[in-house]
């Protein structure tokens, strides 16, 4: 097989950029998962479902405002909030009572949520595909190094660092972030200095869900909004979180970049076997660094 035919510099660059823009969405969704995993210790399988709900809600809101050119932007603002609200209900209504349960039981519990959400989405939105137009200003593509590069991907590419910076600010510069870092390690002691840990947990859970919603809203214009979105993303983000180091937001970033890049470059190098590259990367990482690349809270 001619592995490297036409693997020119410009193609490689574009492919890396595309991989990074894909990594952005993975990062946003995975960071939510890793926050919940790190602070609340819930391996939340329902995270994928929340992402799916985010995408469907975005679709509905954007369609409702379809006369306005701002439809997508309104949706991008509102849909994650709705998802966050669902998260709040989940946390306050159910998870709150289960914090000292076994991880496996939590896993199972969140899995039952994926079943319920899966069918609820079907009940609410039906089983047809939905597709949302890319917002007007990002339609079409730029020409970069002679290759087309979709404007929307550029938008995603820019959004990645924004979210990373936002999360950095949140975890390192705000009281909530500092408390949640402390609570991840020693929940009891956080309570003993007068902080209502339950409220912190709720806040972190809601934040995590919000991020899942943002991820869902952001992919809505690029792909089919359909049932099954939850299944396809959940394993990917779990692997990302694992190779990055459980509970470590920067690990999620690193993992997402590794995942996005191995995927995009794999396609270029060996298109026939593109799908196995990310898995190979994960296996390699876990064999050499079983606890993930960065420090894990667990």
């Amino acid at each position, binding site marked *: 097989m001619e592995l490297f035919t036409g693997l020119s510099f410009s193609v490689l660059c574009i492919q890396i950029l595309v991989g990074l823009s894909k990594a952005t969405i993975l990062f946003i969704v995975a960071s939510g998962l890793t926050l919940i995993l790190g602070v609340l210790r819930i*391996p939340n399988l329902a995270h994928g479902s929340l992402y799916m709900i985010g995408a469907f809600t975005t679709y509905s809101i954007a369609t409702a405002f379809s006369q306005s050119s701002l439809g997508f932007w309104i949706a991008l603002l509102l849909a994650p909030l709705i998802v966050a609200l669902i998260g709040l209900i989940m946390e306050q209504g*159910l998870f709150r*009572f*289960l914090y*000292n*349960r*076994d*991880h*496996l*039981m939590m896993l*199972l*519990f969140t*899995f*039952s*949520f*994926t*079943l*319920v959400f*899966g*069918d*609820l989405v*079907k*009940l609410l939105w039906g089983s047809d595909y939905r597709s949302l137009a890319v917002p007007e200003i990002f339609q079409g593509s730029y020409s970069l190094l002679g290759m087309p590069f979709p404007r929307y991907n550029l938008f995603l590419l820019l959004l990645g660092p924004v979210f990373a910076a936002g999360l950095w600010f949140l975890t390192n510069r705000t009281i909530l972030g500092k408390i949640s870092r402390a609570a991840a390690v020693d929940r009891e002691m956080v309570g003993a200095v007068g902080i209502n840990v339950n409220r912190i947990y709720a806040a972190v859970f809601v934040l995590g869900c919000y991020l899942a919603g943002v991820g869902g809203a952001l992919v809505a214009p690029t792909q089919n909004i359909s049932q099954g979105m939850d*299944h396809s993303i959940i*394993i990917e983000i*779990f*692997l990302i979180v*694992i190779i990055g180091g*459980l509970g470590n937001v920067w690990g999620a970033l690193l993992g997402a970049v590794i995942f996005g890049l191995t995927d995009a470059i794999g396609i270029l190098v060996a298109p026939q076997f593109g*799908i*196995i590259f990310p*898995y*190979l990367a*994960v*296996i390699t990482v*876990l*064999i050499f660094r*079983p*606890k*993930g690349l960065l420090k894990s809270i*667990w």
Partner: protein
Amino acid sequence: MISGVFGKKSLPLVVLFLVGLIFLPYAAPRFYIYLASVILVTGLLATSLNLVLGYGGLYQFHHAVFYGIGAYTTALMLTKTSLPTWVAFASAPVAAAFFGLLIGLICARLSSLHFGMLQISLGSLIWAIVYRWYDFTGGDDGIHGIPVPEAMSATTSSYYFILAITTLCLLLMFIIIKSPFGRILQALRDNPERCEAIGVNITRHRIIAMVIAALFAGAAGSLFVILEGSVFPELLSWTLSLEILIMCLLGGWFTFFGPMLGACLIISMRTFAGNYTEYWTLILGLMMMLTIFFLPKGVFGFINQLFSSKAPDLPLEESSHVAD
């Protein structure tokens, strides 16, 4: 010896139940015989998972891989070679056990969630290979119309064959659980550190446990071929792995017959609820939530606790050092 293993009280009940199952084909319509076969095969798979999950405390998240490997081995032997049929069936557990060893060697030194996730990635890799190797495995179409000998494939005869093998496997697993090895396995689940301190090689034991579990999963896989005459990549998918995990947890993962009960519950539910509503997964999800909320030890664990004066009411955190 066996009566000693089973305990005097429960042996008659097991025999009674077995007799009931033996006479089932005389009483039930054909579909229920088939359904019972499905439950037995799936229950065997779930029980084999529980060997490492409930008794060994390992987060075996991708157990279906071994099931699929068993099924594919039998299918490939039957379709691509002219070896005798029994070789095809005998090689399934062997092949599965081999993969169990392979995956065990790679995973065994990791713990809890990391163990499970590495297993999922390795399993997904095997799945991907099966899914796309058209010439060998038939790709995503799978292999259908596998020439299972007539004497085995008819509903009733396949039921008896499955019943016999399942009973044998369950008996073997029961003996293993009651054996010194099984004792050490449970000790590993309860307290790996103490196990090391009394001279147990943890890694080796975990690998052996995975091999044994894979062996029985492989046997279940070959039974699936007898039952359905088809194999397809979904037999190795992680969603199936999760399903059997649920069976274990729902039925009760610290009990021997829990997974079998879990399989029975879930399969019956999806068969009969599926007739009335498209949304049976919703019902299943709600049912599971309720179970977890109110019966953290699973249905069987709950029954056990209700009726058995000896069942310890240990605090739940006890089981959480499985995790770390």
